[in-house]
């Protein structure tokens, strides 16, 4: 009855099913995800060699299984884990991305929990954003007291859920599937509560591991998993969430106006479903053509940015590459 309890409709999840994102948005996020995952595998293979996949496999199974552990909250609802921040804290950012990718892929393939075409977006929201925030904040507490670290973990876990919810709502909105005005406050409100459960379980788990196997979470281990640049990455995303979330839920009109001023909103609602119809028919509409070009430029720009970020990140943490695997 396990599957019935975790995957019941009463447990709101962030997994977007197919059909809810438009094709362009889905593909852009697939692209982003592929970039992150391929960097992750490359970096990890350098560190672990042939032991990589068994280790990542069991850790993915661990995240999957730990989502089964719940605690009663009230009125028949229960809190349980998404696991992204926990994975980032214990495994480091790249391993967390790979592990969460496997978890989300398996959930989609085995349980149809989340779509296939939109899987890139799901991995981005629940695997990549959570890993970046989770590790970034935890890294900033490296070398500090146990209490500071636990506070950082708590904040990271809560924020990771909020970041996921924020990004999910924005994707749905850009796809023309929802109205920001209602969905954003609802999503953020629900997930502010879910995030508390996430934070409590995560901090409980980390405290337990710190007590029983302090060697796994020692300061050397943290710094070996990523350089100082991660603090910046975590900080920037945190700032984005902290600034954007209240703005978006209190005055979604503001966000809509910004998007409209940038010429973003109108194209986003009309274009994607007419993008291909017009494309396959000889007389191309002027606006549609411009949308296609704009979309292509956007994709290239995002890809370029990510590659640039990846290169700097790799340079920043180059010394770790030559370190001997400690296990």
């Amino acid at each position: 009855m396990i599957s019935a309890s975790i995957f019941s409709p009463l447990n709101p999840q962030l997994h977007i099913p197919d059909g809810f994102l438009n094709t362009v948005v889905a593909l852009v996020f697939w692209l982003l995800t592929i970039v992150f995952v391929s960097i992750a595998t490359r970096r990890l293979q350098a560190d672990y060699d042939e032991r990589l996949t068994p280790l990542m496999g069991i850790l993915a199974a661990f995240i999957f299984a730990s989502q089964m552990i719940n605690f009663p909250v009230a009125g028949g609802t229960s809190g349980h884990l998404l696991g992204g921040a926990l994975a980032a804290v214990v495994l480091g950012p790249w391993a967390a991305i790979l592990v969460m990718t496997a978890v989300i892929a398996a959930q989609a393939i085995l349980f149809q929990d989340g779509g296939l075409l939109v899987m890139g977006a799901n991995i981005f929201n629940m695997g990549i954003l959570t890993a970046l925030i989770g590790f970034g904040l935890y890294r900033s507490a490296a070398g500090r007291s146990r209490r500071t670290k636990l506070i950082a973990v708590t904040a990271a876990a809560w924020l990771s859920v909020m970041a996921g919810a924020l990004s999910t709502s924005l994707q749905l909105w850009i796809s023309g599937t929802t109205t920001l005005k209602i969905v954003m406050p609802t999503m953020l409100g629900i997930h502010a509560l879910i995030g508390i459960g996430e934070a409590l379980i995560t901090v409980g788990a980390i405290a337990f591991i710190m007590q029983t196997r302090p060697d796994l979470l020692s300061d050397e281990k943290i710094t070996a998993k990523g350089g100082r640049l991660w603090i910046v990455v975590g900080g920037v995303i945190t700032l984005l969430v902290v600034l954007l979330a209240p703005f978006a839920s209190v005055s979604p009109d503001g966000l809509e106006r910004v998007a409209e001023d940038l010429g973003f909103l109108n194209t986003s609602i009309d274009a994607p479903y007419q993008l291909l119809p017009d494309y396959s028919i000889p007389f191309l509409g002027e606006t549609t053509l411009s949308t296609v070009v704009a979309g292509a430029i956007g994709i290239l720009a995002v890809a370029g940015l990510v590659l640039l970020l990846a290169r700097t990140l790799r340079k920043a943490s180059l010394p770790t590459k030559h370190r001997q695997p400690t296990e």
Partner: protein
Amino acid sequence: MQTSTFDRYQSGDSPIHHLDPRVKVIITVLFILSNALIPDGVWLGFFLALMLVLVITGWAGLTWSFALKRSLIVLPFTLAAVTIIFSMPGSPLGIIQIGPWALIPTDTGLIRFISIMFRSLLSVQMAILLTATTPFPDLIHAFRHLRLPQPLVATLSFMYRYLFVLSDETTRLLRARRARSASLPGKQSGGPLLWRAGVAGNMVGQLFLRSLERGDRVYQAMLARGYTGHLYTLNPHIMQRQDWLFAGLASAYLLFIQVVCRIALFY
């Protein structure tokens, strides 16, 4: 072992079960992409897509409502899209009064909402058929043949191996907690919320450490038994004539749906 909870595979001996998993994966993805490209309100397109789902269900020897029933799992998510009914500009269909709020559904909004619904349900139905007719190890095999990054595929296959072991471990942890949480009828067992969350957190930590240790032992055992990084399956997976035929027919049908939709847009 709770094999049944994780594996949605329905064993069978149908032509669909015998298809090469690569073909099934590709056609499923193309089908979902095709749904995404059916324009709003072109009901004929959705109807044609549904026909394909039903034909494949029939071929696979499943009851016709098999995928339809299971696809209802996406319904909770549709709450996120409901607002579009009232927010898209279009001609109003009336007014719904809920307390102080007046909601005005529009025709374009409603059409868009129903289209999103159909796209989502149909896509999930095909994905359900894929997992119902293909054992997971065969799917992994297909991913490998389709050149998905090797570390990711291997991680997935290992994950599948360990899933059963770790879920048993978790079930034992949960059972132990239940056994120690006796309570009087009508009263909640255990301490306050924070305490309960802490216990759950410690269980997760415990599970992590056990997973690490167990993973190591299982890996050593697998090496000792000759594991070389491949999962074997009894199915040979060589593309046969019927595989090519099915792939060709199904893609042609999907193309046909798209063409019909484009033509329908003009009328």
